[in-house]
């Protein structure tokens, strides 16, 4: 049973397409996302990376096709509980009014999974924030601190997977690297799956274990990050990686 569960992909997209305003954003995407990994979604702007990520906790629904989560169609889960199990962190962190502690409390108040809410101090520590930050006004934090606080807020619902939408795009390279090191550490320590969109290939290469290359709404190639970056099968992937380096 256990082996079967491990073998079930975290997410499966089955012939998923999405249109918006007459424009096709995702075309017939079929792919598995593994559960024990940091998965990076890479590809040029407009490839559909963020659109794909938003399908995974139903911030949007596909126009056609099915998204599966833990072996069940995603639409079979109550949407609130699904979103608490698949925490989403936006490109631009949005803090709620009040202190950092208030932000964490709001996430808990919205309901959390099994086992009761985690200890806020530990969560802050896990995302690399000092404990005394809890009493500070959330909108007064720096960009990097806000992004860490967003991740902490998402962790308060005890998610199984974190969905990160270009979490470092507004950060300095150094701050970005620290943040992703924290995320990779979280993933290893807590067995937390991570799916992250990034346009910085170095980040994908350094911190992910699985990489999905998207272009023009289609999956070009997917596989272990090491192989994608050293021995990509698809010439489009090779070209994209070369051009970005």
């Amino acid at each position, binding site marked *: 049973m256990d082996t079967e569960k491990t073998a079930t992909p975290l997410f499966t997209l089955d012939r998923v397409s999405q249109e918006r305003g007459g424009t096709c954003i995702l075309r017939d995407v079929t792919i598995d996302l593994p559960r024990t990994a940091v998965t990076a979604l890479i590809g040029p702007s407009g490839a559909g990376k963020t659109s794909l990520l938003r399908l995974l906790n*139903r*911030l949007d629904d596909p126009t056609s096709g099915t998204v599966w989560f833990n072996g069940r169609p995603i639409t079979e889960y109550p*949407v609130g*509980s699904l979103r608490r199990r698949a*925490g989403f962190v936006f490109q631009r962190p949005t803090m*709620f009014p009040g202190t950092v502690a208030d932000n964490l409390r709001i996430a808990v108040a*919205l309901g959390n999974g099994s086992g009761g809410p985690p200890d806020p101090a530990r969560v802050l520590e896990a995302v690399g924030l000092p404990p005394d930050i809890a009493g500070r006004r959330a909108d007064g934090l720096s960009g990097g601190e806000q992004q860490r606080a967003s991740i902490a807020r998402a962790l308060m*619902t005890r998610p199984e997977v974190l969905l990160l939408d270009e979490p470092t795009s507004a950060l300095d390279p150094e701050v970005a690297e620290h943040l992703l090191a924290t995320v990779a550490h979280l993933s290893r320590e807590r067995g937390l799956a991570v799916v992250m969109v990034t346009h910085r290939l170095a980040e994908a290469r350094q911190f992910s274990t699985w990489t999905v290359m998207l272009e023009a709404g289609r999956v070009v190639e997917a596989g272990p990050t090491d192989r994608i970056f050293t021995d990509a099968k698809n010439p489009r992937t090779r070209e994209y990686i070369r051009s970005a380096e």
Partner: protein
Amino acid sequence: MNAALLQQTAPAAADTIVVTWTDLGLSSALILVAIAISEWQRLGIARSLTVGAIRAVVQLVLVGYVLVYIFATSLWWIVLLALVVMLLAATSTATRRPGKRVAIGNRRTLWTISGTAMFIGSGLTLAYVTEIVLNVDPWYEPRYLIPLFGMIIGNAMNGAALAAERLAAEIENRRGEVEAYLALGASSARAAAEPTRRALLAALIPTVNSLMVVGLVQLPGMMTGQILAGQSPLLAVRYQIVVQFMLAGATAITGVIVVLWYRKTFFTDADQLATRVPV
């Protein structure tokens, strides 16, 4: 309108000055002053002022005759018909926002929402004031129902328009916050709680301001009218107090229905923030 008709419908106090057509002609000098200033300062609104003045005269004279007819016939269904026409006109005005975009729904949705909200908010308030507070007899007495409903619907209309417009703007401006709530598993009602609160507040602020300054900054039209018509200011004041409370109640009921219902149109059944589409 001849003097006999004036006497027949509203026996004015003996010392009320009757405004004659000559008097109206004299008063038009004032609108000519406004037109002259517009020309002098090149405001480019002389034409609008002229058309507006003519429309005001025609509309008010027509309404005068319609009211004379309604008062004279005093049939319940004609009174209700008049109220319905007022409601429809107010609904169209409240939802006429050229260039504005509306959530998933279209302008017809907003029309339905605003119209229903105004119907409930104004209808309940009018019924309460005329039946419970004033004991109007018969219940459809047009001399009470029509002016009171006119004031209620005018305020409810502004409240509905402000609430809807502000809600759309707040949800658009706070899209990030709303989606951050949704992403944590919040219901759409929770995610849009702050935009909803702000929209309702925007709808009610004019009412609050009016309660604060009434009698100090300006005398309300109805009270002025009563005093000009020879009523005791003390009685006019009592009416005005009823009117102020009535307008606050009607605006609050209308506003809350608009924001709670309209809010739903911004979300899908799966608590997703809908893509806005131009109407």
